[in-house]
C-alpha cells in the first residue's frame, strides 16, 4: 500500500478502494479464528481457494477469510454475501456443492443451514438466527466485514476516519471531553471512566507518556479480547492512536497473552501495514503527530493482567504488582505517566468519535453506557461471543441468545467476572447486566466471561476450582494472598473430599476478610469472591458436603458412587470395555454391575453409556 501523507490522501485512498469494490458481487466469507481453526477451518479455506481456481471463478467471486464472528458453537461458518446466507459446520467436502448451488445457481444448500432447536425450522439468513437476532453488534460486528490481515478491508468500511478526524478537527482536550461525555467505562473489569483516566494521564508531569493496550486476557472462559484482536486488530489500534493523541503520547504497547499466537500475529501484521502507509511513525498525515506501537508478548502469568504487574513484565521483570499509592497514570511504565486500557475499551473509541458521545449515551443503562461483549460458555446451547447493550438481563442472554441449557438441564447459576467474580443464582437472572447491578448481587462485570452452570455443577467444586487457579497464579508477594489462597483451597478441597467440619465455613469467611484487607492487588483482594458468593447463595450445598457427606450435584468423587440402573442397561458392554479398572462385570444380555471397591470414579462409563443407565448415588 502506498504512503499516505495527508488526511485528504487518506480519503482518496479510501474512495479508490471503495470504487474498486462492488457490494453486489458475490463473496464467500469463511470464519477462521482460533475456534474455527480448531474445527478445521483452514482446510475449508484451502478447498474454496482451490475450487475457485479450478473453475476459474476467481474474478467473479470474492473470497474473504475473517476472524471469529461469535457463533463458535457452529464453526466453521461460511457466509455468502450479498444475501447473507449462513452455512454452519462446513467441511471441505461441502465446498463444491456450495459453489455450484448457492453461488452459481442461487439455491440454498438446506443441509448446511442452522436448524432452530425448538421449532425445527431451517434458517438461511445469518441475522435471522436467534443467536444473532438478539444482539447489538457494534464493536464486534465489523469482524464479519473484514479480513483482519488486510488494511484495505478496514479502510473500505471507514477505518481510520475517526483518527484522521481528531487529528484535523479536535484538540486533545476536545477528544478527552468526548470520551468523558460518552460515559465509556473500562471494559477490563475495573469499570473506571475512560475519559477521566485519559485526562489524569494527560495532566501528569513527565517528558514522555505511554499508552498500553492490555490484551493479557487471563480469565478462564473469557475470550472477547482475543476475538477482537484476531478479527479486527485495526479497530483496537485506531482506538489507541486516538487515545495517544488525546493523552500526548508517542509510544504505545500491546501486551498480548502468551496463549494467543494468532492474535499476536494479526496485530503484528496490522502494525506493519500502518507503518508502511505512514499511519504510524513520524509526522502522521502531515499533522506533526508522532506515534508508534510495539508488541510485548506475555509469559503465561495471570497476574500480569494487573496494570502494574503488566508494566513490570514489559520492562523485563517478573510480573509482580506494586502498591498504587501513586497511580500508573502518573508513574507507570519506566516511571513515566502511562495510560492502560483493555482491548475492548480501545475498540469502542473510534465508534464514539464517529457517531458522537450523545449517540453512545443512548445505549445502555444510567451508569453503564454502550454495549458489552460477553463470552457465553459452559452449559449453554449456543456457546460464543455475544455483544449486547448494557442492561440486558441474564435471562435474555442465556435463553434467547444462548438457546438455554443443553439436554433439558436446569439453570443453576451464572458465573461472571472470572476468578474475581461470583456466582449469580438462577433466582436472580432477571437483573439487568451492568457494572453496578452485578456488584449489588455480589459479583462483578469483570472482563465479560459468563459461565453458565446447570444442576450437574457442584458449587463447592466451582469455588475449589477458582481457588486452585488463584493459588497457582498468586505471584506470592503478599502473604495474605499467597498463603490465604492455599489455605482456602485446602479447606475447600477437604470439604469436597468429605473431610469438612462445621467450623470450616466460618474459617473460610475469616480468611476471606484477611485477604480482602491485606492484599496489594485485585488478585488477592478479590480471590475470596467465588467462595463468598457460593457461600451466600448455595450454603445448603456446603452443608450437604460437610454434614451429610453428600455432593448433591454428583460431582465430588469422594462423595459419590456409580450404580447401573438394571432397567435401563441393555448389556451392550460398552462400559465394561472402557472401564480402566475392570470394575464392571456382566455377561451378554444380563444387566451389568459396578464393583464399588474397584471403581475409581473416573466417569469413563458414564460418558460412554448411550442409555443413561449409569447413575450417581
Amino acid at each position, binding site marked *: 500500500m502506498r504512503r499516505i501523507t495527508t488526511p485528504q490522501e487518506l480519503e482518496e485512498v479510501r474512495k479508490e478502494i471503495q470504487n474498486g469494490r462492488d457490494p453486489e458481487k458475490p463473496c464467500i466469507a469463511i470464519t477462521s479464528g482460533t475456534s474455527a481453526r480448531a474445527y478445521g477451518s483452514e482446510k475449508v479455506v484451502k478447498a474454496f481457494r482451490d475450487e475457485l481456481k479450478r473453475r476459474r471463478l476467481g474474478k467473479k467471486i470474492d473470497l474473504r477469510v475473517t476472524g471469529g464472528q461469535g457463533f463458535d458453537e457452529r464453526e466453521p461458518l461460511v457466509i455468502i454475501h450479498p444475501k447473507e446466507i449462513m452455512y454452519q459446520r462446513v467441511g471441505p467436502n461441502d465446498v463444491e456443492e456450495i459453489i455450484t448451488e448457492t453461488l452459481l445457481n442461487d439455491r440454498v444448500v438446506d443441509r448446511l443451514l442452522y436448524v432452530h432447536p425448538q421449532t425445527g425450522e431451517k434458517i438461511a439468513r445469518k441475522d435471522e438466527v436467534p443467536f444473532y437476532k438478539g444482539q447489538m453488534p457494534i464493536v464486534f460486528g465489523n469482524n464479519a466485514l473484514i479480513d483482519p490481515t488486510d488494511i484495505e478491508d478496514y479502510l473500505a468500511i471507514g477505518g481510520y476516519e475517526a483518527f484522521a478526524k481528531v487529528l484535523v478537527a479536535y484538540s486533545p482536550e476536545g477528544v478527552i471531553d468526548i470520551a468523558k461525555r460518552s460515559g465509556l467505562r473500562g471494559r477490563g473489569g475495573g469499570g473506571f471512566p475512560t475519559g477521566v483516566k485519559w485526562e489524569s494521564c494527560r495532566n501528569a508531569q513527565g517528558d514522555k507518556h505511554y499508552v498500553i493496550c492490555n490484551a493479557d486476557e487471563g480469565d478462564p472462559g473469557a475470550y472477547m479480547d482475543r476475538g477482537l484482536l484476531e478479527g479486527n486488530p485495526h479497530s483496537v489500534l485506531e482506538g489507541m492512536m486516538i487515545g495517544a493523541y488525546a493523552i500526548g503520547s508517542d509510544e504505545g504497547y500491546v501486551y498480548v497473552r502468551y496463549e494467543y499466537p494468532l492474535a499476536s500475529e494479526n496485530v503484528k501484521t496490522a502494525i506493519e501495514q500502518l507503518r508502511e502507509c505512514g499511519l504510524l511513525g513520524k509526522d502522521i498525515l502531515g499533522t506533526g503527530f508522532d506515534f508508534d506501537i510495539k508488541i510485548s*508478548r506475555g509469559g503465561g502469568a495471570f497476574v500480569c493482567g494487573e496494570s502494574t504487574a503488566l508494566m513490570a513484565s514489559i520492562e523485563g521483570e*517478573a510480573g509482580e504488582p506494586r502498591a498504587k499509592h501513586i497511580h500508573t497514570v502518573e508513574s507507570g511504565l519506566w516511571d513515566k505517566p502511562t495510560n492502560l486500557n483493555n482491548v475492548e475499551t480501545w475498540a469502542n473509541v473510534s465508534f464514539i468519535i464517529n457517531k458522537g458521545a450523545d449517540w453512545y449515551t443512548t445505549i445502555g443503562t444510567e451508569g453503564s453506557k454502550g454495549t458489552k461483549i460477553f463470552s457465553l460458555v*459452559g452449559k449453554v446451547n449456543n456457546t460464543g461471543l455475544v455483544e449486547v447493550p448494557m442492561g440486558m438481563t441474564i435471562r435474555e442472554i442465556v435463553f434467547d441468545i444462548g438457546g438455554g441449557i443443553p439436554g433439558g438441564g436446569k439453570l443453576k447459576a451464572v458465573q461472571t467476572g472470572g476468578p474475581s467474580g461470583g456466582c449469580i443464582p438462577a433466582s436472580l437472572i432477571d437483573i439487568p447486566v451492568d457494572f453496578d447491578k452485578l456488584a449489588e448481587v455480589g459479583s462483578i462485570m469483570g472482563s465479560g466471561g459468563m459461565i453458565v452452570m446447570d444442576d450437574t*455443577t457442584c458449587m463447592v467444586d466451582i469455588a475449589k*476450582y477458582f481457588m486452585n487457579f488463584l493459588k497457582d497464579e498468586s505471584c506470592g508477594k503478599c502473604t495474605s494472598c499467597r498463603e490465604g489462597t492455599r489455605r482456602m483451597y485446602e479447606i475447600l478441597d477437604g470439604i469436597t473430599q468429605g473431610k469438612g467440619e462445621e467450623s470450616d465455613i466460618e474459617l473460610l469467611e475469616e480468611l476471606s476478610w484477611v485477604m480482602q484487607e491485606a492484599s496489594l492487588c485485585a488478585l488477592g483482594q478479590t480471590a475470596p469472591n467465588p467462595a463468598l458468593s457460593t457461600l451466600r447463595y448455595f450454603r445448603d450445598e456446603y452443608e450437604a458436603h460437610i454434614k451429610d457427606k453428600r455432593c448433591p450435584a454428583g460431582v465430588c468423587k469422594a462423595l459419590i458412587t456409580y450404580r447401573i440402573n438394571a432397567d435401563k442397561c441393555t448389556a451392550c458392554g460398552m462400559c465394561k470395555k472402557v472401564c480402566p479398572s475392570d470394575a464392571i462385570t456382566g455377561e451378554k444380555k444380563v444387566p451389568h454391575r459396578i464393583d464399588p471397591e474397584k471403581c475409581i470414579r473416573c466417569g*469413563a462409563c458414564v460418558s460412554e453409556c448411550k442409555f443413561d443407565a449409569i447413575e450417581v448415588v
Partner: protein
Amino acid sequence: MDTRAIDRILKKHNHEHSSIIAMLQDLQELENYLPENSLEYLSEKLSMPLSKIYRIATFYNAFSLTPRGKHLISVCLGTACHVRGAAKVLDRIRMYLGVEVGGMTKDGLFSLETVNCLGACAMGPIVVAGGDYYGQMTPAKVAPTMKNYGKKPPKPAAKPPRRKGKK
C-alpha cells in the same frame, strides 16, 4: 547448544535487558525448553546475573527448565471446560500416560501440561495433542486419542497417582 542461533536471538532484541522475556521465548522455541548452558551463555552475553534470568524463567508459566516430550499434551482447565468435566479427562490422561502434570513420560513421547483456557470454549472439554485439537473430550475418548500418537495403555491398570501441589 547452538551459540550462533542464540547470538541471532540476542541481535534481534538488540541485547536489551527489557526484552529478556521475548528472548527466552525465542530460545525456548529453538530448544523446546530452556537448557541450563544456554541460559548461562545468555547471562554472560547480556551481562545479566543468571539468578535474574532464573527468576524470570521460573516466574512465567510459559517456560520449562526441563526437556519436553515429543508430543505435548495440553489439557484445557478453563472454567467452561471444567464445568463440562475437564478434571475427569485430565485424571484419565494422567493415569493412562502414568505421568503427572508438568512431567514427561519415561519413553520421552509425551509431556503433560494444563492450560487455563484456550478460548475455544465451544469445543470443551478440549485436549490439544501435538498441536491437534480434540474437542468434546470424555474420559472414554482418552485411550483412542493417545493411541494416535503411539501410546499403548499401561498394564496392569493402576489407580491414578495423587495430584500434588503446583504443576
